C-alpha cells in the first residue's frame, strides 16, 4: 500500500489544531462580547439595531400568516360563545350607557371649571401605531419588536400603550424597527399608584406574568381587584395610564395582573409624551437558548 506523502501526514494534525484554535478563539470572543454587553457599549446597541432592522421585514412577512391563523382561531372560539358573549355585552352596554351619562355631565362640568380657572389644556400627543412582529421573550427577558423606528418618529424612552393599558417603553430604536421593553421585564420599573387610595408604589417587573408592587407605604392595604395606574413620578411615564389590577396581596408580596394580554399584542401605539423617558443604564438580562427567548 502506498504511504501518504509528508504533506498529507502533516495536514491532518494541522487541521485538528486549527479547529481547536478556532473553537477556543470563538469561546474567547463570546466571553469578550458578554463583558462588552454587560458594559452596554454603544457599539453593541448599534450592531443590534442594525441586525434587527435588517430582519424585521422578514419577521413582518412571517408573522402575518400566524396572526391570520390566530385571528381565525379566535373567531371560531367567539362563534361558539356567541350567546353568552351577547348577554355579557348587553349587560356591559347598559352599564356603559350609565357611565356615558356620567362622563358627559363631568365633561361639561370640567369644561366650565377650566374656563373659570384658565386651566392649560395638555397638547395633543403625537403617536405612531406599530405592528408587533416578534416576541423576544423567554424566562429571562420580556420585550417585543415592532415595525416602526426613528424614520416614523419613534425614539428611545417613548411610551407604548394599547387600548387596554400600558405595554412598556421603547428600549432601542433602529430606522425601521424598535424594541419595546414590556412592563413585566426584569429591568422595568414603573412609578404607579393605587387608584382608590392614591398610595404611590413602584411596579417592578421580574420576568413573570405578574409584576410585583414594591416600595408601597407600610400602612397601605391594597385590595385584590383594585386598579393600578401610572403616577407620572420620575418623568418616565405620564400619569393616569391604566396598568393592571391587584391580583394577590399576601406573604409572597403584592402581585399585579396587567390589563394588557401580552401574548395577544398585535399592534401597539407608541406615544411621545415629551417626557425625558431616559432608560436607566443597566446591563440587559441574559436570555436563555431560545425561547431565548
Amino acid at each position, binding site marked *: 500500500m502506498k504511504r501518504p506523502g509528508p504533506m498529507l501526514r502533516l495536514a491532518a494534525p494541522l487541521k485538528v489544531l486549527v479547529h481547536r484554535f478556532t*473553537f477556543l478563539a470563538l469561546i474567547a470572543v463570546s466571553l469578550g462580547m*458578554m463583558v462588552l454587553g454587560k458594559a452596554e457599549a454603544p457599539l453593541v446597541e448599534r450592531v443590534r439595531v442594525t441586525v434587527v432592522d435588517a430582519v424585521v421585514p422578514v419577521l413582518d412577512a412571517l408573522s402575518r400568516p400566524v396572526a391570520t391563523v390566530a385571528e381565525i382561531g379566535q373567531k371560531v372560539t367567539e362563534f361558539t360563545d356567541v350567546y353568552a358573549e351577547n348577554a355579557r355585552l348587553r349587560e356591559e352596554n347598559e352599564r356603559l350607557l350609565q357611565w356615558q351619562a356620567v362622563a358627559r355631565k363631568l365633561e361639561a362640568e370640567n369644561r366650565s371649571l377650566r374656563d373659570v380657572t384658565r386651566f392649560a389644556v395638555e397638547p395633543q400627543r403625537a403617536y405612531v401605531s406599530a405592528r408587533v412582529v416578534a416576541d423576544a421573550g*423567554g424566562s429571562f427577558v420580556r420585550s417585543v419588536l415592532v415595525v416602526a423606528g426613528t424614520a416614523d418618529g419613534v425614539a428611545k424612552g417613548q411610551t407604548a400603550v394599547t387600548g387596554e393599558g400600558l405595554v412598556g417603553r421603547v428600549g432601542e430604536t433602529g430606522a425601521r424597527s424598535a*424594541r419595546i421593553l414590556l412592563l413585566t421585564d426584569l429591568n422595568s420599573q414603573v412609578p404607579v399608584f393605587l387608584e382608590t387610595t392614591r398610595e404611590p408604589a413602584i411596579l417592578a417587573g421580574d420576568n413573570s406574568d405578574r409584576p410585583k408592587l414594591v416600595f408601597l407605604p407600610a400602612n397601605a392595604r391594597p385590595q385584590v381587584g383594585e386598579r393600578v395606574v401610572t403616577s407620572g413620578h420620575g418623568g418616565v411615564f405620564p400619569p393616569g395610564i391604566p396598568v393592571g389590577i391587584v391580583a394577590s396581596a399576601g406573604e409572597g408580596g403584592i402581585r399585579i395582573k396587567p390589563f394588557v394580554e401580552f*401574548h395577544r399584542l398585535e399592534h401597539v401605539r407608541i406615544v411621545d409624551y415629551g417626557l425625558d423617558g431616559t432608560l436607566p443604564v443597566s446591563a440587559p438580562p*441574559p436570555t436563555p*437558548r*431560545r425561547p431565548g*427567548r
Partner: protein
Amino acid sequence: MKSSPFQQLDLWARRTAPFAITLFVVVLSFVPLRLPAYFSVAPDFVLMAVFYWTVHRSDLMRSWSVFVVGLFDDLLSGGLLGLNALTLLLVHWAIVTQHKVFRGKPFGPVWAAFAVVATATNLFVAILAYALARAPVDMGALGVQYALTVALYPVLAWLLGRAQRAFLPVP
C-alpha cells in the same frame, strides 16, 4: 473533470444549507404565535437545529457557523450578547468530541442524548443568568420549556432530515 461555475455555486449553496436553515430557524423562533404563556415556555428550536446538524453533518456545521447562529440569536433576543453564542459553542464542542457515540446510532439513542444536552444547556443558562443578572428562574416555566423542547425534537429532526436528503451532498 473541472466543474463549471454554476456547478460550483450549486455545491456551495448546498453546503451552506445547514447554516442557512439554522439561521432561518432562529428568525422563525421569534415569530409571535399568540398563544397564552407561550412567551415563557417556547421550545428551543435553535438548540434542536444546531444539535441535529452537528450530529448529522458536523462537516457543514462548523464552530464558526454555530458562533454566528448564537450571535444572531443574541442580537435578535435583546439579551446579553455572547451568551447564546457561548452556550451553542459548548453544545457543538460536546457533540463533536463525542462524535463516535452518535455515529450510526438509531434515532432513539440520539434523542436521549439530545435530552441530556438540553438538560445541561438549561441548567448552564439558568445558573449563568442568575449569576450575571440575578434573573429569577421560574423552574416551572423552565421545566415546561425543557419538556416541549425534548418532545418536539423528533418533529424538527424529521423536517431537517427531509431537507438533508433533498439538498445536501453525501459526505
